[in-house]
């Protein structure tokens, strides 16, 4: 299952890219699993995802909690808490 990952703000900076395609294994069921798996991909990913409590997520452009199942997600975004306005 291929997923387009999007990263924003300091998550993007630590990983070194704002977008990548990934193909996680079957065992990756929810967003938290995906973050764990991605953390093993590079030092940048590990640095960006070191504190999951500081991360927020969206699946196919809808905010979700980190325990949300990926299901047939095509686009998953990981980012810090939002600070607009």
């Amino acid at each position, binding site marked *: 299952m291929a997923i387009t990952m999007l990263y*924003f*703000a300091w998550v993007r900076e630590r990983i070194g890219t704002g977008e990548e395609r990934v193909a996680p294994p079957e065992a990756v069921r929810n967003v938290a699993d995906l973050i764990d798996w991605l953390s093993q991909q590079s030092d940048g990913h590990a640095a960006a995802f070191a504190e999951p409590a500081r991360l927020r997520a969206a699946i196919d452009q809808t905010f979700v909690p980190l325990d949300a199942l990926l299901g047939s997600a095509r686009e998953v*975004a990981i980012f810090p808490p*939002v*600070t*607009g*306005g």
Partner: protein
Amino acid sequence: MIRVSVDAAPIELGVEVAALEARGAGGVATFTGVVRTDDGVEALELEHYPGMTEAALCALAEAAIDRWHLLGVTIVHRVGKMVAGERIVFVGTAAAHRREALEACAYLIDRLKTDAPFWKREWLADGTRWVEPRGTDAEAASHWL
């Protein structure tokens, strides 16, 4: 009628207010957010999630129209880099009476802070730093649930 815009161009206050007044409502309420000059911040940079941002703002506007029977909602959010004194965000509502317009305007800016994917970065004399969310923002947004 909803107008949502996420753009790097400066926000034209007079144009936005005039468009809301032209809706024929009895009252128009507006909120303007401006880049602060405190803490040695020289500029502010806004990043967003293209596509999701516009959808999130439209969803907020629709929720406000349903709740307060508005005749018009405008949400304009600037992105990119801006200096102290420049407008970051404009929220305007048009309704038959003042209470609906004022309440809906407050609701929209409170919810925008927690429900739309924007991230602020401050530019200082010696570097940049990402802005951390304030707990009071989440409290203000949850007040409307």
